[in-house]
């Protein structure tokens, strides 16, 4: 996998928002590489900037937000320089598509399913009339909707939640994009439907050969689908690596805390682990490691200087002073050690 070319390369991205005259820094210098054909999961708690980060690849930041500095390189083109909506529309929906969280509200209730798919085909491929209708029905069939010709003439309210999410995926796939961004695609769905949707995306990925980014806070989904994981905290990617590296050899205290709060890792009859405190205020500049105030074992330097990116392996890196050669050796929490032990047993 490491030999693959980087399809999307983000470097030191800073995204800011203007909220009633105050400037909020939502993304604070995040860097990320997306490799062709892989599945990347971005995890983190609410407000960590997962959605904003990916929206900036599509030029879909809210009107009060902007890319302040850094670069987004996609197919050799610098997206962060895009100014007009015209420029963005060549990428948006055509090369990078997005699937949203709530399929119940993501479709226009007054347009037939077929028309909503045709709209994309018409826009990006210039298909019209019967050709567009045929292509739309074909796409519906590809996402597992039976009797697609008839279903294309129906309205969203005649579809169940899972079916609507399939339609949203069909819309996203209609132009055969290079990258599919799934923003919590299963959060609003029934547990039984979730697995079906994940399987569908995986199957489509095999057929069409696109690259997927999942935004999620469901670590179960991550373990299920991802090749690589990026952990976000306070607008920064604090740790990234292959999925095994993140689950079984995490290095950042925040990743430890995140994994420890998985209910599955808790001990019966003991209270579930929860991360204390609240995420930092992004209106003010952050000194040192953003997670330090919530980390009971934070080092002195964590409060003073921002940790650089340390590489554990060519694929695995983390931004924590614990990886500095001078840092004291700190054992990860018991839950993390148990995870690693279980993994090593299964490998042996």
């Amino acid at each position, binding site marked *: 996998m490491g030999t693959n070319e980087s399809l999307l390369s983000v470097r030191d991205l800073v995204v800011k928002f203007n909220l009633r005259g105050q400037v909020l820094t939502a993304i604070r210098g995040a860097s990320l590489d997306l490799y062709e054909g892989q599945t990347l999961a971005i995890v983190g708690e609410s407000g960590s900037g997962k959605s904003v980060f990916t929206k900036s690849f599509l030029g879909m930041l809210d009107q009060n937000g902007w890319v302040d500095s850094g670069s987004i390189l996609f197919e050799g083109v610098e997206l962060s320089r895009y100014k007009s909506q015209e420029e963005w529309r060549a990428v948006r929906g055509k090369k990078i598509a997005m699937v949203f969280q709530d399929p119940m*509200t993501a479709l*226009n209730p007054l347009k037939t399913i077929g028309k909503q798919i045709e709209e994309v085909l018409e826009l990006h491929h210039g298909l019209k009339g019967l050709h567009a209708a045929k292509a739309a029905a074909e796409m519906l069939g590809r996402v597992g909707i039976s009797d697609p010709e008839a279903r294309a003439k129906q309205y969203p309210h*005649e579809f169940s939640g899972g079916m609507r999410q399939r339609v949203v995926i069909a819309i996203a796939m209609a132009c055969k994009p290079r990258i599919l961004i799934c923003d919590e695609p299963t959060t609003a769905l029934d547990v039984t439907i979730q697995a079906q949707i994940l399987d569908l995306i995986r199957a489509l990925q095999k057929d069409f050969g696109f690259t997927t980014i999942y935004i999620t806070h469901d670590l179960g989904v991550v373990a299920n689908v991802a090749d690589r994981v990026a952990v976000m905290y306070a607008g920064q990617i604090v740790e990234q690596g292959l999925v095994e590296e993140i689950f079984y050899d995490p290095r950042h205290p925040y990743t430890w805390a995140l994994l420890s709060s998985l209910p599955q890792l808790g001990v019966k009859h003991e209270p579930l682990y929860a991360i204390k405190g609240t995420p930092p205020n992004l209106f003010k500049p952050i000194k040192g490691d953003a997670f330090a105030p919530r980390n009971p074992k934070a080092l002195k330097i964590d409060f003073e200087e921002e940790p650089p990116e340390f590489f554990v392996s060519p694929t695995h890196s983390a931004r924590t002073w614990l990886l500095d050669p001078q840092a004291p050796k700190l054992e990860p929490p018991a839950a993390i050690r148990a995870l690693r032990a279980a993994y090593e047993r299964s490998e042996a």
Partner: protein
Amino acid sequence: MLKYSIKRLLQSLVTLFIVVTAVFMLMRLLPVEGYFGDAYDKLTESQREAILQKMGLLDPWYVQIGNFYAGLLRGELGVSSIYRRDVPVLEVIAPRVPYSVRFGLAATAMSIFLGLAMGIHMTRHKGRLWDKTWTAYIVFVTSVPSAVYLLFVQLYGTSLFKVPLLFDKYRPSSWILPVVSIAVTGIAGYAMWMRRYMVDELNKDYIKLARAKGLSDSAIMTRHVMRNAYVPMAQYLPAAILATISGSIYIESLYSIPGMGGLLVDVIQRQDNPLVQALCLIYSSVGILGLYLGDLLMAAFDPRIQLVKSEGAR
């Protein structure tokens, strides 16, 4: 759909019956002296009695209303009792209908066209200068009593555009000011609702998806936002149109237009019961019809609305 239409039609008839009966009863509660006008003092007690007897006003109320509805079922609205004595009611009203309808339709067309355009313009400039300018207009029109600014329109409009002060059926230019006056309030109403519904739609999730598809802002506006905003507008439209047609009473008297509105005011004052009843019947039918058409129109626009319960599960 047919079943629903019939059901709603029957409901409308009940409403109509209640309204017309209420008007009938209210007219009977007016003092009898009113029926004689200026001639009251010149008449003797027995002459007055004879007149009231002839109008059927001395019968018990249930006989009176029974006669009224019996006539109505035969298609007879009676004859004018005071305003133009013994002339059939329809003959009095008929020549006035075209004026009210024509003015109403012209004003409605103008208010819908300009109102929707204004609402769309406001949405596109939401929070900016144009939005605020038009909002100021809407606030002015809805809060200042219309008598005040309509008088200004009449006085200054007349001298500014060199058009006649009063309506003159032989001079087409005399149409302009009354139509504008009726439309002034209509425009404000349509603009306000259109903006509101469009902003509602703009904040919905499917707009985000439409944007992610790569649609341009103007395509999103025309294909999604405007189209969807018309649905709630559609429900309100027929009632508003009909209200414009029937509701220009003040304008009709301001410009001396021989329409139905002015007539209604006149005949209520002079207690010409058959005419009042007939006009009220027309006005309430028009109003109820408006609500009914609104529902049908909305159902036609919105696939989610099924007017009859569907059989079985989907």
